[in-house]
């Protein structure tokens, strides 16, 4: 048997969602462990730039219900309205709570609200249900994620949360009745496997955009939690919906936050034309991300792209002046100089739509409980298992996420999950007997990479997979392209059996980690292609050339993908909010 530690709750992931949940549990005096494959402040949340959205009304009049309308519309009506209501209603208190924890928000200068939290306009934000631009995104310069993640980590230090830094979770432990009893994890430094037993487990493993070749995401965003869920027989929801952020630096992928446009920047094509007004007359450069990304793709397609190869457009900031750029967008200036070789104070930044965010994920209810169609209906909670953050699909983002809503999702649902776990732990006081088999399967995953194999190598397979998704599942999709992509991905999957690593060391074997990550990326890639092929409509970030219209009669529903036999299932969108009237689907324009 492998060494074991026992906790009340275990949280897999030390990003914003995991740390917010951990804090809730630690403050309730429960024994909680946070596992993270990197030191927590290295988690991807640290990269978030622009801000966190809440209708504080510090700059313009605002209301949570307007935020809710924008989010429902932004989701192209695929978001669940009960979850969206919960998130928007709780947004202001969640942000105030972060401020009380010590988050160094930028502050407003002068005027009635001097000294209050600084807010900036972001895409898709409106006052009075589609009226004037709202100013709703709360920011700490252009490093809001850094501020948020460090603050949450610091609060967890104060609450004496137990951290298992550089522990890589391999698989969930599940008993015959379907209860989740913890995880098996690899201590990276020693190469030793541990059983981390807990009556409640939260997956907060973040996104998986590394299935694509060009992405704004950290290299560690490999969808490990999604792989764990799939291997436990659980479904993934809405995996066809990947957000392409309009403004990533070509090739390297580094993000130029939407705050660039929020602060007054705009996009130009080869002719120097500000083209967004042609696509979104009202919101222009601050239209929703899916809309702006498609506009850029069309400009490039029409031969109006910039640069030698005409493969990008440009983001103009120089008219804002050096002082404003230095105060509000210092990190952007830095990244642009380093990675695009361009100082935005003087020159426009080259940008192109780049994969950024996974709207889909592990299906959960409002309490963060993972739900699956098991026996009695489509949304039966899996006992002992929770998910929150980018790896979860609750679903507040539907077919297209609005900027600033992810950080909000992390703290609102991280907290909700933590609260429900406390309740669950009270009702389930005693640990259940551990099954033997759950642990063995995880250990076999490790042992597999200790054996000599064939000629295939992990980096090569990963790159092939990334190229397939980039080419066959881009901003625009088409049946024949997707089918071809699935065929190619099959071939890559088959080659995995022949793959081996050369490094046989136990201590800090990063080759083995990359192999284990690839085993998570591949099924996520598969889920993406299969769901995208099935959805014969265009909605939000999923744009089908062969089905250009949204089709509410057939497709106002969530996709559910199961690993066994590539099975697909569907469940209805929750159109009924908690207390207010539903927003009926209507045509979406900006």
């Amino acid at each position: 048997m492998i060494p074991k530690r026992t906790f009340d709750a275990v949280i897999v992931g030390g990003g914003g969602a995991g740390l917010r949940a951990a804090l809730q549990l630690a403050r309730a005096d429960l024994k909680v462990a946070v596992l993270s494959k990197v030191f927590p402040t290295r988690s991807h949340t640290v990269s978030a730039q622009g801000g966190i959205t809440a209708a504080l009304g510090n700059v313009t009049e605002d209301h949570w219900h307007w935020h809710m309308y924008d989010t429902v519309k932004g989701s192209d009506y695929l978001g669940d309205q009960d979850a969206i209501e919960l998130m928007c209603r709780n947004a202001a208190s969640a942000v105030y709570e972060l401020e009380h924890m010590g988050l160094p928000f930028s502050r407003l200068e002068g005027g009635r609200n001097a000294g209050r939290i600084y807010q900036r306009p972001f895409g898709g934000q409106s006052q009075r249900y589609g009226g004037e631009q709202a100013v709703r995104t709360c920011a700490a310069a252009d490093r809001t994620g850094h501020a948020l993640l460090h603050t949450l980590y610091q609060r967890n230090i104060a609450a004496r949360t137990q951290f298992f830094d550089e522990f890589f979770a391999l698989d969930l432990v599940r008993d015959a009745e379907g209860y989740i009893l913890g995880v098996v994890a690899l201590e990276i430094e020693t190469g030793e496997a541990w059983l981390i037993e807990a009556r409640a487990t939260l997956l907060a493993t973040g996104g998986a955009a590394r299935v694509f070749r060009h992405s704004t995401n950290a290299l560690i965003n490999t969808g490990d939690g999604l792989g764990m869920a799939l291997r436990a027989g659980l479904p993934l929801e809405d995996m066809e919906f990947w957000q392409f952020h309009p403004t990533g630096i070509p090739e390297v992928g580094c993000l130029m936050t939407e705050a660039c446009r929020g602060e007054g920047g705009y996009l130009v094509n080869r002719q120097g034309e500000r083209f967004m007004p042609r696509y979104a007359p009202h919101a222009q450069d601050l239209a929703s991300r899916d809309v702006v990304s498609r506009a850029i793709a069309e400009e490039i397609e029409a031969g109006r792209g910039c640069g030698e190869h005409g493969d990008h457009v440009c983001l103009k900031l120089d008219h804002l002046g050096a002082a404003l750029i230095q105060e509000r967008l210092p990190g952007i200036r830095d990244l642009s100089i380093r990675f695009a070789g361009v100082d935005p104070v003087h020159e426009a930044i080259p940008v192109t739509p780049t994969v950024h965010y996974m709207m889909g994920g592990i299906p959960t209810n409002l309490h963060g409980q993972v739900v699956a169609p098991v026996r009695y209906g489509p949304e039966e909670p899996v006992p002992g298992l929770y998910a929150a953050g980018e790896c979860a699909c609750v679903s507040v983002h539907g077919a297209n996420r609005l900027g600033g809503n992810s950080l909000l999702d992390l703290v609102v649902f991280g907290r909700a999950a933590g609260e429900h776990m406390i309740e669950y732990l009270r009702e389930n006081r005693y640990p259940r007997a551990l099954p033997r088999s759950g642990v063995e399967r995880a250990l076999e995953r490790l042992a597999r990479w200790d054996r000599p194999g064939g000629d295939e190598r992990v980096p090569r397979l990963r790159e092939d997979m990334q190229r397939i998704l980039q080419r066959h599942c881009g901003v625009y999709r088409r049946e024949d392209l997707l089918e071809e992509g699935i065929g190619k991905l099959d071939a890559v999957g088959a080659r995995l059996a022949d793959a081996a690593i050369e490094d046989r060391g136990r201590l800090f074997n990063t080759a083995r980690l990359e192999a284990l990550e690839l085993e998570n990326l591949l099924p996520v890639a598969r889920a993406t292609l299969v769901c995208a092929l099935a959805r014969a409509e265009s909605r939000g970030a999923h744009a089908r050339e062969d089905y250009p219209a949204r089709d509410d009669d057939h497709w106002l529903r969530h996709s559910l993908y199961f690993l066994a036999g590539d099975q697909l299932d569907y469940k209805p969108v929750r159109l009924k909010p908690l207390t207010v009237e539903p927003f009926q689907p209507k045509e979406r324009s900006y």
Partner: protein
Amino acid sequence: MARLRLRIYRYDPESGAAPVMRDYELEIDPRGRMVLDALLALKELDDSLAFRRSCREGVCGSDGMNINGVNALACVTPLEGLRQPIEIRPLPRLPVVRDLIVDMSQFFQHYRAVKPYLINLDPEPENERPQSAAERAELDGLWECILCGCCTTACPSFWWNPDRFLGPAALLQACRFITDSRDQATDERLDYLEDRYRLFRCHGIMNCVEVCPKGLNPTAAIGKIKKLLVKRAL
């Protein structure tokens, strides 16, 4: 394409062999590429090469290492202009776990020791606690630290007293909370720092300032704390 020459510190404690500097050659177009790109390309050829990385854009603090004698983040250090062979070693004076990976426990222990969290025992107001833009501006240059360890492991005072001198990164953090207009524990924080070793081992050598990849100035932060201590003593 150009041939790039690198010399990399290799150490595998399991092998029983002493650390060595190994030479590598790599076909890579260095234009616009970073040291991390070269390491990632090398890892495709030799998967036993171990180093940490995450964000690949200089914001997470994973890949602090010593490049041609200077502590830096591999992901934001351009290959162009580096003297060849490019010598890459782990951050100095911390125990090496393997290759370029160091054990940062001591570094994080010092971080935790300064109570790096806001202390304010007043009841929480309904909305945000007010803070003027000017008060908030005082925090600029203090809150952006990514805990990469480049500064502390470049500090001679830390080399001599790693267990007793807190080092520039932890002291910068201490200053961040002392400076925050919302924090109420200044006295308690100063009490802890008023110590021959924890703070006063800093002799203003400024190595830390030179290497900080975020352009922060721990020396100034340390100076500020010293000034506050003097003021308090009067």
